[in-house]
């Protein structure tokens, strides 16, 4: 059994019979078909799948940015979403970006400054609170985005390939940081990624999605104790297995069709 679990688990997410179609009539495309998913409070779930398998659509629905065509979505608390691009507001400093999230959450003015600094300290940006996004590296920007997610005080955090644009070195460090922050805060995470090794490194459970329509085709509980190293034997073995399954799934579709959705 995986040893580390969040201190005070909260959140949880339940999707029942969720589907999403775009367009109408002949041109209708079902991006997601009849999906069931349960994420326990404090659980870290990684979702992998090829392009167009509907994993980003699932997050958009879970975040409430779009409504599902059918089915129901219940989240055990507030939902925050972290994007691949940090989408920090360029006219605000690192602290300003975090403070805006605090303000929109209703934190009183007097408390915002100190709280923003504290959150930026947690993502090791204590010395860079006054930097603007364009003065920071991609990794630093994603750390500010992570601090902003913390500022939202969400119970469910959805991450849409948040490390996709980073180099391998920075990614490794972000894995440690995300894990640390998650263990500390105890929220549920749904982490969408292309990177199988990353999924195995971080998750309590990996979910493999297939395309046309988007659905879950395989689940795997990752019972390697934390702290994990991506290059450790059990992680490598699990990643190899998952990669094999992903390959088979991709091969099942004619490539041209596959990337069409």
């Amino acid at each position, binding site marked *: 059994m995986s*040893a*580390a679990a969040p201190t005070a688990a909260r959140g949880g997410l339940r999707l029942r019979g969720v589907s999403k179609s775009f367009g109408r009539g002949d041109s209708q495309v079902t991006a997601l078909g009849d999906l069931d998913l349960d994420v326990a409070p404090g659980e870290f779930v990684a979702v992998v799948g090829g392009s167009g398998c509907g994993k980003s659509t699932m997050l958009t629905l879970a975040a409430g940015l779009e409504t599902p065509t059918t089915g129901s979505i219940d989240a055990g608390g507030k939902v925050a979403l972290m*994007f691949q691009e940090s989408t920090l507001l360029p*006219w605000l400093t690192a602290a300003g970006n975090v403070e805006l999230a605090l303000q929109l959450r209703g934190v009183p003015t007097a408390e915002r400054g100190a709280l923003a600094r504290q959150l930026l300290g947690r993502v090791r940006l204590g010395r860079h609170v006054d930097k*603007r996004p364009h003065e920071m590296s991609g990794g*630093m920007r994603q750390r500010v985005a992570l601090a902003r997610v913390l500022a939202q005080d969400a119970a469910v955090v959805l991450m849409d390939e948040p490390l996709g644009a980073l180099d391998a070195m920075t990614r490794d460090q972000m894995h440690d940081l995300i894990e640390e922050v998650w263990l500390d805060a105890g929220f549920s995470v749904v982490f969408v990624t292309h990177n199988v090794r990353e999924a195995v490194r971080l998750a309590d459970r990996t979910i493999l999605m297939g395309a046309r329509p988007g659905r879950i085709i395989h689940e795997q509980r990752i019972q390697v104790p934390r*702290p994990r190293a991506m290059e450790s034997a059990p992680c490598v073995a699990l990643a190899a297995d998952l990669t094999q399954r992903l390959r088979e799934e991709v091969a099942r579709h004619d490539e041209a069709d596959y990337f069409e959705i």
Partner: protein
Amino acid sequence: MTRPTTSRSDVAEPLDPAEEPLADDAAARPARWRRALPILLATGIFLVLWQVVSWSGWKPEYLLPGPTVVLGELARLASEPSFWVALGRTLTRAVVGFALAVAIGTAIGLATARSRLLRSAIGSLVTGLQTMPSVVWFPLAILLMGLGEQAIMFVVVLGAAPSVANGVLTGVDQVPPAYHRLGDVLGARGWTLYRHIIIPAALPSYVAGLSQGWAFAWRSLMAGELLVVIPGAIALGNRLSFAQEFGDAAGLMAYMIVILVVGMLADTAFSAAARRLRERRGLATPAERRA
């Protein structure tokens, strides 16, 4: 139950190697005089050409005086209180008219951006008005309001407000979809979304609209002061037409220089504001950074 992987110390920083940022700052910038040198040079060449044409005898000197004569006349005018009265009145009109145009244009721009109905109703009208030379409004304005301040203000506002409104509209339209999604995720809706995300994001375009609006206001005002002469109210524009009527070429050119300089100063201020805004967001072009 083992706990976190990484050691925690809140200020033990470097997490990634690219930490030290890529800022180029004041030090890298060329000195101010180096920026001013080409301008001074161009002005010098222009003055020399002007003097040469004047000396060539193409027109008699009382019709086309050289720069020394005109600048001398300008200095003489500047020593008269009436010059400052005229300049003051014109600037007051410009500032009041522009301020009104900004208030009206901003309100119309925001309302049009937010309401689909308003946008389809008057969106293209706003753009259309912008292409209409504002002088065209003068006959109607004079007919409705008589030869007075009101007619001038009316045309100045009509000249400038569409540009301002258009700046707002373009700015709001060009806000990246990602910011709208972010607003959704952070729980910002309606006016809150505008206040914290949409309006700041639209600011560079708004400043461009203000700058264009000022240019139109200034042109409309000059046209107005040439056409609408209010007895007893001296202003730059009607000083210009008096100078023409009295065949005072040197005075006429001196006033033209004043009008040019006011326009250039305002433009410099707007450009500087726009550049600062872009620099703060990391959007300055290499040319802007060198400038």
